[in-house]
């Protein structure tokens, strides 16, 4: 792991009593390698290491008794700062209903996370309505309905509907009629490359004015996370992220990449398939995980 690799470098240097620029480079190269292995985006890793170099320069770590540990601490603190710097709570509308809209690539956990969010908010005294607008994927509506039952929350569906935006609008009317203070909209998976489907999402957003457009990001995503997140942010608008499948062993560097480039916060972590498997996001735990 990184601590061991840095320890090895400093051990080789300790006999010498002075530090060459290439020694600093060797240490920072190990940090960069660790970040790339953790799937941090190439450019984000490069910029991050430059910040570590600056942070380390002022701290005389090279003369310390445990320089490897000190470098790790600088890296960990800087990761935590970047991941948590945008931290905030979920935003609600000044007048109900509050609308949350889930968006993201195929299979990233939107439908599951919608039900989890409903459960989370119901437990906090809200009265959510789940909305099934994925009219394309076979049995997507049925899947959300099962999730709704598990969460103890009703699911709004319009059998036979063909326009997802119309379903979203109708759901708002139903929420007003039935007194739901939160509306959680599940959308169909789509590629950021698909202009027509991205436009559909933008249209849905304009129609229902969500307090939060939440992008689901699979924790095992590699370098593509940045392109995807930037395009969802540019074409639809993203307010926050849900980082899913954190119950695996993916290091999750995509989280750093996306927060760094979009400046949006990770609001929740998905940690399992059950409806109660949603946690707040802890930046310091994520920093330790990325470092491995």
């Amino acid at each position, binding site marked *: 792991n990184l601590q061991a690799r840095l320890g090895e470098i400093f051990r080789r240097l300790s006999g010498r009593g002075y530090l060459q620029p290439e020694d600093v480079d060797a240490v920072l190269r190990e940090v960069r390698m660790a970040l790339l292995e953790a799937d941090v985006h*190439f450019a984000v890793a490069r910029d991050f290491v430059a910040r570590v170099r600056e942070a380390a320069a002022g701290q005389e770590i090279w003369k310390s008794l445990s320089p490897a540990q000190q470098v790790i601490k600088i890296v960990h603190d800087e990761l935590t700062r970047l991941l948590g710097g945008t931290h905030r709570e979920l935003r609600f509308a000044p007048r109900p209903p509050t609308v949350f809209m889930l968006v993201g690539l195929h*299979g990233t956990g939107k439908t599951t996370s919608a039900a989890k969010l409903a459960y989370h908010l119901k437990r906090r005294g809200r009265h959510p309505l789940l909305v099934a607008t994925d009219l394309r994927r*076979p049995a997507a509506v049925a899947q959300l309905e099962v999730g709704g039952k598990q969460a103890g929350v009703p699911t709004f569906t319009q059998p036979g509907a063909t326009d997802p935006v119309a379903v979203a609008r109708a759901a708002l009317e139903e929420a007003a009629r039935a007194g739901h203070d939160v509306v959680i909209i599940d959308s169909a998976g789509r590629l950021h490359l698909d202009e027509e489907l991205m436009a559909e999402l933008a249209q849905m957003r304009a129609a229902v004015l969500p307090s939060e457009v939440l992008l689901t990001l699979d924790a095992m995503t590699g370098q593509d996370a940045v392109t995807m997140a930037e395009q969802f942010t540019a074409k639809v608008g993203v307010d926050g992220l849900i980082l899913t499948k954190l119950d695996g062993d993916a290091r999750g560097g995509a989280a750093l990449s996306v927060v760094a480039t979009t400046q949006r916060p990770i609001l929740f972590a998905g940690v399992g398939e059950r409806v109660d498997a949603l946690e707040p996001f802890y930046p310091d735990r994520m920093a330790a995980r990325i470092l491995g």
Partner: protein
Amino acid sequence: ALAGRAIDDTYLAELEEALILADMGAATAMEVTSRLRAARGLRTTADVQAALRRILLDLTGPAVPFQVEPPPAVVLALGVNGSGKTTTIAKLAYRLRGEGRKVLLAAADTFRAAAIDQLAIWAQRVGVEMVRHQPGGDPGAVVFDGLQAMRARGMDVLIVDTAGRLHTKVNLMEELRKLNRIIARDAPPTVERLLVLDAATGQNAISQARLFHEAVDVTGIVLTKLDGTAKGGIVLAIARDLKLPVKFLGTGERLDDLTPFDPEAFVDALLP
């Protein structure tokens, strides 16, 4: 962008960056650039491109075709949550049916919400029969019934859908081993155990491939969602470490969005 360039340190650094951005991983990317640096007799830029292409093709290895002969063949689809298993099974069934084969599906994902319904809709669209039990039932029983029906009805291929599972979940991996043992006990002449992998997956795909391979002896990979912007370079790292061949590419959500893996076309799409 790198095609017209001399092979100097700047070129090699930019090449390494391009390969890492394609999710090949730093270790594999560095191996490729060091092999290129060591290559002899590269005079023109065309020489460099050809050498790089050879190195990448050496990593992928030759195409290993998907096998359903001799019948009856069993295809087991496995992989982590959301990778595209169920949709890939529909595409495979469509392709095999187009070849005139008799195909049967087994809905052995008895866990996830509406998983059986999802596969049932695909079965109806493709025009194939499906073995199903109640949601929450024993997936092993579905596999067993699928095998019985395959024999009884003289089917050419049985395709088994399984629940998504993270490779780190010991009990779920043991369940997968059990499903594999049920198939092995039936001893069909041909079995394909396909790891379905999302092309946008990063380095974690290596540990996924390793653990699934240790559990059930994977015979091939289906790399899905290549119609996105991810390049799927991780399969080169997997080929290098585990020698697992890619057999199909998933390039969309429709039934005909499945192509047999062509190493040359894949490498050409990967090359910067």
